[in-house]
């Protein structure tokens, strides 16, 4: 086949159909949220009766909505910051120093990725419950602060920087820890961005763990909140979908800005030279 205009139109048509298929659930969600309180939502909204107030109504009818979003922000931001710091500290000696047992520690960190979270969730729940950390930020944050993926990613990034850099910095009177934070980390910005975006998205989107460790409705995260809100009496279809869109918005914005970094990070695990 040649690269004629016919072929181009054909490819555009295929891309268009595929895009519609992929986006359909999201467009349907938006469409239903704008249709007002109805028991028979349709695929296309009546353009004359579009009701944008629904996005305000979500916060008026579900008083906890803002709190749920705040909870998710606090938890996701804390986990992101924590993972970056803990991973950077652990990756630093693995990438730059020589010491006995180095490989052992590396396997200890990577080995954590072999244990699925679902296999440890029961003992973790029992720990958090006996510490009376249910309905608390520490219960939602602490179990996720260490990341095998993060340590691996930052170690790879630190290893690409030349050793001479360290020697030069030491001559200038730079301490070891300062070297990590004021030279290594700023030079590893792409890897840091990848880790931060990945950590934030996956924490924001968590469901199982917050479902277990939260009893008080005010402590719900956004994900648990929207699924609980769905089964309340006040939640008409348009409100359910509007609440869902409100909770999805931050992640879509983050993906919009950080798609490149996220893609780079995710594919680094999948592809080897």
């Amino acid at each position, binding site marked *: 086949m040649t690269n004629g205009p016919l072929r181009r139109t054909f490819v555009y048509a*295929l*891309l268009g159909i*595929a*895009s519609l298929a*992929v986006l359909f659930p*999201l467009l*349907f*969600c938006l469409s*239903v949220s704008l249709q007002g309180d109805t028991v*028979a*939502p349709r*695929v296309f909204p009546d353009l004359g009766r579009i009701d944008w107030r629904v996005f305000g109504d979500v916060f008026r009818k579900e008083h906890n909505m803002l709190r749920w979003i705040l909870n998710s922000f606090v938890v996701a931001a804390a986990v992101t910051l924590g993972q970056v710091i*803990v991973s950077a*500290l*652990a990756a*630093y*000696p*693995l990438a730059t120093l020589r*010491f006995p047992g*180095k490989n052992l*520690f590396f396997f200890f*960190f990577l080995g*954590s990725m*072999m*244990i*699925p979270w*679902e*296999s*440890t*969730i*029961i*003992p*973790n729940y*029992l*720990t958090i419950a*006996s510490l009376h950390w249910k309905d608390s930020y520490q219960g939602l944050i*602490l179990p996720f602060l*260490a990341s095998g993926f993060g*340590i691996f990613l930052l170690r790879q990034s630190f290893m690409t920087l030349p050793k001479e850099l360290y020697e030069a910095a030491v001559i200038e009177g730079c301490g070891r820890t300062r070297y990590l934070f004021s030279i290594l980390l700023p030079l590893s910005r792409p890897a840091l961005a990848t880790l931060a975006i990945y950590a934030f998205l996956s924490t*924001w*989107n968590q*469901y*199982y763990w917050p479902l277990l460790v939260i009893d008080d409705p005010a402590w719900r995260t956004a*994900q648990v909140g929207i*699924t609980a809100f*769905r089964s309340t009496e006040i939640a008409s*279809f348009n409100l359910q*979908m509007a609440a*869902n869109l409100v909770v*999805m918005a931050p*992640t*879509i914005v*983050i*993906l919009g800005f950080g798609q490149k970094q*996220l*893609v780079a990070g*995710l*594919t680094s695990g*999948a*592809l080897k030279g």
Partner: protein
Amino acid sequence: MVPLLYMSPAIVLFIAFTYAPFVRAISLSFFTVNRNTFQPARFVGLDYYKRILDLGGSPFGSMYLHSLLTTIEFALMVVPPSLIAALALAVLAQAKLKSIGLFRSIFTSTIAISVASAAVIWSLIFSPNARLFQGLIELLHLNATSVLTDSRTALPAVALTTVWTGLGFNFIIALAGLQAIPRDLYESALIDGAEGWKTFRYVTLPMLGPTLLFLLIMTSISCFEAFTQFKVLIDSVGPDQSTNVFVYSIFDSFWMENNYGLASAMSVILFLAILGMTLVQFRLDAKVHYQ
């Protein structure tokens, strides 16, 4: 000492929330566990494992084995369509067009959508109120009013939701795999007179082996770990237990029945199943790479 100092936060956290709980799950799986103190009460040996794998002939046993089989059935419904869809979108997204970036972003978009959000949307899509699946319900003569409440369609419906949710991630990996294929291979294929489907069949697919293997294992593992979509869409073991996948079944024993010992034994079996898949990937990956 210095390296240990830097690594100590990570070491402490991994012991506290990964390795110690893992060891505790293994040890709890041999005991009945007190519901209030969470302490092991009576040693039962391998009883729970026998019950789960239906080796003792207990009246409840087959339920857990059935749940494992349901998980495999679920994976078989999710994995092939996921791989085919990701590959098709990735091939499309290689077209040399000005606006291709926009289409790539659209195909990537579901990566930002949480499983919970996706399930909330799909529960409306499947709802009898939206009538989108009315035709299918009539075609199959279902007795239920929704595809989610009939034992024949509930699992495929959850599988469809899962395929959509995973599309973004699978697309990214497939596209990266395609882009890593050296250009000159296509040029030599063209010189040899191959084009279109033949190039795809004899150049693209074989070169994509490691990528497809990675996707196959990752998607299978995520099917074995699936919980959220079942909790949000079905919120029970499903019609005739047709959607009682393994992690949901663990949740049931743990959360509803407070049988911590049994649930721990199931967690260990889940770990072994996923470890098995990871090891298969390592073995095959070495083969695919060095052949």
